[in-house]
């Protein structure tokens, strides 16, 4: 059970992972508040990218509507907290359940009616856009006016209600990201991971071998949407404000999946590396622009787009797979 997590992983890969984790553990003690907020963003994208990767990278189902799960979970936990005083650690379970239910409904409709590939991707966009407009008119959570959590200066951290300093959020997110990494490794090395691999590569052959494709695709959607729900709850309590326009937007869905695509779809470390690279890139461009007093709107994102274009043109499998080969870290990380 435990041994399968590290079987076949070169020792130096484990050492490097350990070093990275240790560095992230001590980071808040040494870095500035600003850098910490950037690191929180990195972990947020790493975790959410990992969750999306379960569906796309493992089971091969392209979802372009993951902002739906983030948004629904964020609103659920926030509404429970604001309207009923139910804390996030209780609310998160309902948030996960509702997110999973959304995922399962979409998955059921799509997989039962044989919708795949591009059509599936468009269906996921359609559902998240549908929900966005719905929430714009959902007065219980203040519609398009935005839904706010009460904010105060917290002298003491209150982890039970997720109220406190960025450092507290950082450590919670780091724990979640690390657990998700281990969980995904566990999934990949188990029976289900191999089933997904078969479904992703050759669905017909997988079916011939007696794999219940429908069931395992549904499981992938359920796990992915449930994991994504956690990012939503985190988002709600970290940023304290929710706007349907932002949280459900198509741009948000795209932002979430850039990390794993740039890092390397289907790999375990790809989403984490992708999150680091992209956040560093966006932030670096920001600094660069400010430094040269070049603050024309749009310039930054044009550069960002050009960088994405370059990566996708010349590194079709993402950054991580060629890198891990170079470092001699095996094929399954």
């Amino acid at each position, binding site marked *: 059970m435990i041994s399968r997590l590290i079987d076949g992983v070169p020792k130096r890969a484990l050492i490097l992972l350990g070093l990275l984790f240790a560095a992230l553990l001590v980071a808040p003690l040494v870095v500035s508040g600003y850098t910490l907020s950037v690191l929180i963003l990195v972990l947020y994208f790493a975790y959410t990218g990992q969750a999306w990767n379960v569906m*796309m990278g493992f089971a091969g189902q*392209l979802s*372009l509507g993951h902002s739906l799960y983030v948004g629904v979970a964020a609103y659920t936990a926030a509404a429970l907290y604001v309207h009923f005083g139910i804390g996030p650690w209780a609310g998160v379970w309902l948030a996960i359940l509702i997110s999973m239910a959304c995922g399962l409904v979409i998955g059921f*409709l799509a997989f039962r*009616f*044989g*919708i795949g*590939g*591009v*059509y599936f*991707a*468009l*269906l996921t*966009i*359609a*559902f998240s*856009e*549908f929900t966005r*407009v*719905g929430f*714009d*008119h959902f007065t219980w959570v203040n519609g*398009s006016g935005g839904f706010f959590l009460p904010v105060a200066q917290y002298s003491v951290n209150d982890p039970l209600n997720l109220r406190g300093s960025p450092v507290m959020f950082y450590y919670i997110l780091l724990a979640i990201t690390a657990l998700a990494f281990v969980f995904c490794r566990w999934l990949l090395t188990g029976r289900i991971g191999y089933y997904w691999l078969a479904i992703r590569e050759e669905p017909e052959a997988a079916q011939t071998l007696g794999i219940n494709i429908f069931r395992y695709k549904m499981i992938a959607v359920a796990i992915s949407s449930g994991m994504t729900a956690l990012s939503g709850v985190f988002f709600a309590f970290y940023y304290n404000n929710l706007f349907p326009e932002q949280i459900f937007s*198509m*741009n948000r869905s*795209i932002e979430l999946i*850039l990390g794993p*695509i740039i890092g390397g*779809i289907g790999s375990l470390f790809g989403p984490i590396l992708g999150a680091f690279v992209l956040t560093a890139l966006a932030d670096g461009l920001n600094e660069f622009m400010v430094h040269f007093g070049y603050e*024309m*709107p*749009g*310039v*930054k*994102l*044009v550069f*960002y*787009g*050009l960088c*994405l*274009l370059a990566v*996708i*043109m010349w590194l*079709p499998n993402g950054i991580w797979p060629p890198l891990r080969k170079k470092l001699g870290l095996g094929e399954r990380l």
Partner: protein
Amino acid sequence: MPAELIFNVAIQGILTGLVYGLMALGLSVIFGVVRVVNFAHGEMMTIASYAAIIAFGAWGIDPLVAMVPIAVVLFALGYIMQAVLINPFINRPEHSQFMLLAAVALIMVNGLLMIFGPDARNVMVDYALDSFEIGPLLVDKVRVITAALAMAITAGLFAFFKLSRTGKAIRACADNHMGALVVGLNVKRLYALTFGIGSACVGAAGAMMALLIDTTPNIGPAFTLQAFVIVIVGGLGSMPGALLGGVLIGLSEAMSGLFFAPSAKSMFAIAILILVLLFRPQGLLGRKA
């Protein structure tokens, strides 16, 4: 609610929908032949709208005239995009193609933002407020002209694909990629040509849209999505289907704006999409794959 009002709004919606249909036609042609999802479609339309706005602002050229050179420029843009960027991606997985075009879309939106800023712009031609009176109904002149042009362009394109040798060759590529290669068609060049034709459609539609709506750099993604909705509702690869889809979506937008809230209009379009995807995935006028 008076019946004339409902009819007036419905006709407005149908006429606007025909222009939407022309825009979506470009996507349908590209997707139907090249099998690549053009995620930068709405952004290309926005580029065309800005070109029309500049032509009008700088030289006073009517967008309906500027439409011709704009379509030519967009044709070139599409041809180059396919030849340089997309052809190497033909055999890559879908998510890879998606990323490529999402990056192109990002560059286009923000390039426009850099050049023109975030403010909304439009074109006020001197006949902008004219209308035809048919009995109790008032119909905008601009909408009638643009809708007629959209139908004429679609008919022209239909004839091109049915009658010309190049059009037939392109359809052959769409029907059987391998077969087209075997009989010696230059598939890559035909793909580039197809992408160019689709882009010219969206160019013409963009020039017309400059007359109908306010343009900002950020409307691109919404129109990309809308083009997809229309194409899937109408039926992929069906040219009348694109127009029918456009009309349906235009009508549903107008009606939901009238009976509910204008901000809820895209919800109805998407509800139609979801229903069509589930119960008639090949689209209303599409052939079964």
